[in-house]
């Protein structure tokens, strides 16, 4: 029963959503709304599980003298200060929580995002090396698109922006549509496998 119950719940939830999508009426809409509200409530409680997981892992590191325990200490202090300030003084504009978020967390997130520029450069260097004919085509296409997307491109050659637009709107969109159609079918197939109880590996069964 322990292994069957999650499959039964997945089946009922899946069928409910299918009925809600194709059906119309007060009962159907109400049941679907109720199910989505449950999902939100469950997700809210799950956050406690997440915080519990973080505290348990890093407390264990501190207690056992893990070599990286200093990072764990910093994390637990930050978690306590951010969480505590929000609970005690609120999270509105001008509060301590808001200041910590705007002056510490937001700049750190921006820093991580800007690191992406360097990673794109290093990944592009590897991807655009002309090792064979296909890589050379990729390199040439990338050069046309990049030059065509900057103002200087049209001064280098007047048709470059048009070429870049054509590459982005015709071959690129065609490939993306192929991927999206395949992915949509794959997703639908996966959903059916889960609803019908054929796919149980996400429960750790049948490995």
């Amino acid at each position, binding site marked *: 029963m322990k292994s069957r119950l999650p499959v039964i719940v997945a089946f009922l939830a899946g069928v409910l959503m299918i009925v809600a999508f194709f*059906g119309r009426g007060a009962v159907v809409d109400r049941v679907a709304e109720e199910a989505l509200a449950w999902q939100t409530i469950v997700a809210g409680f799950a956050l406690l599980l997440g915080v519990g997981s973080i505290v348990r892992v890093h407390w264990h590191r501190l207690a056992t003298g893990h070599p990286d325990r200093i990072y764990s200490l910093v994390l637990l202090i930050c978690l306590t200060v951010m969480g505590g300030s929000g609970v005690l003084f609120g999270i509105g504009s001008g509060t301590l929580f808001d200041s910590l978020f705007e002056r510490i967390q937001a700049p750190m997130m921006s820093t*991580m995002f800007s690191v992406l520029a360097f990673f*794109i450069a290093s990944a592009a260097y590897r991807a655009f090396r002309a090792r064979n004919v296909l890589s050379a085509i990729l390199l040439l296409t990338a050069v046309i698109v990049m030059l065509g997307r900057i103002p200087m491109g049209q001064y280098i050659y007047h048709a470059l922006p048009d070429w870049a637009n054509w590459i982005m709107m015709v071959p690129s969109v065609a490939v993306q549509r192929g*991927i999206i159609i395949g992915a949509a079918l*794959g997703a639908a197939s996966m959903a059916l496998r889960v609803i019908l109880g054929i*796919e149980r590996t996400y429960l*750790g069964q*049948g490995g």
Partner: protein
Amino acid sequence: MTIGGHKPGRTLARTRYPRIPRLWLIPICAAVLTATPAWAQEPSGVFRMERLNALVLVVVFTLAILWFLRRAVKGAKLYVRPLPGVSAVDEAVGRATEMGRPVVFIPGTGDLDEIQTIAGLSVLGRVAHVTARYTTPLRVPVLYPLPMAAAKETVREAYIDEGMADHLTPETVQYVAGESFSYSARVGGMMIREKPAAAIYMGQFRAESLLIAEVGQSTGAIQIAGTAEPDQLPFFIAACDYTLIGEELYAASAYLSGEPRLLGSLKGQDLMKVLIALVVLVGVIFVTLGYGTEWWEALLQAQ
């Protein structure tokens, strides 16, 4: 080493698509009904008539999957084309086992209501069985709490199944952060410190894909990625050794298991692909010639 005893590219049995004339009639009949304006505009009733085309698609799809599934269970031989990225999962876990270094598995950065996350967790179930069998350390950092709970259960069941429950630690599956850049920083730091031999990314990814994959690349880990996000695919292709593109992510679990029932569902999916390609082809010809443009729009439009 193989997972589930399935060898890539092996002919599980004879390759032959069956004839199913009756199934072909269903979408044609439904298309005629759906494209009729009176039906499509009907506002009353318990059924949303404007979604009839989608319902027909779902019904035909389900029938196709169930039909192939039945054939597979009866022992019909089905061929699955080899997917290098999926075959490399064995190689990656084997490499980590030999080197005594961990395997990092990221089931995407989407929540549990995202089907890509479910697909990622399905592959995690297979990988966890192998890491448990060979006592290879496994690290599963997760972005949201619900996937964490699901991943914990998936890994725990796999380890219990292999009789290795005592090898699980709180660090095996852990919630890291609820924000993607914090998550990327934490995962990157972990990779640099622990130097995993293999990193597997399967699921939905956003801007953090390259932040994580580039760090993994710099540690020398063999990297396998799979996502259905077209915007993130170029990043994974540039940074990873193998990339599963779109539908391959959803097929990975079935492919790794080698279970006839799961492979049967892949064949049903293939049949639908052929049907949709035919509909698109015929539609393109008709619309190009200027016949029935509105009819085709009504047929294919999602409501």
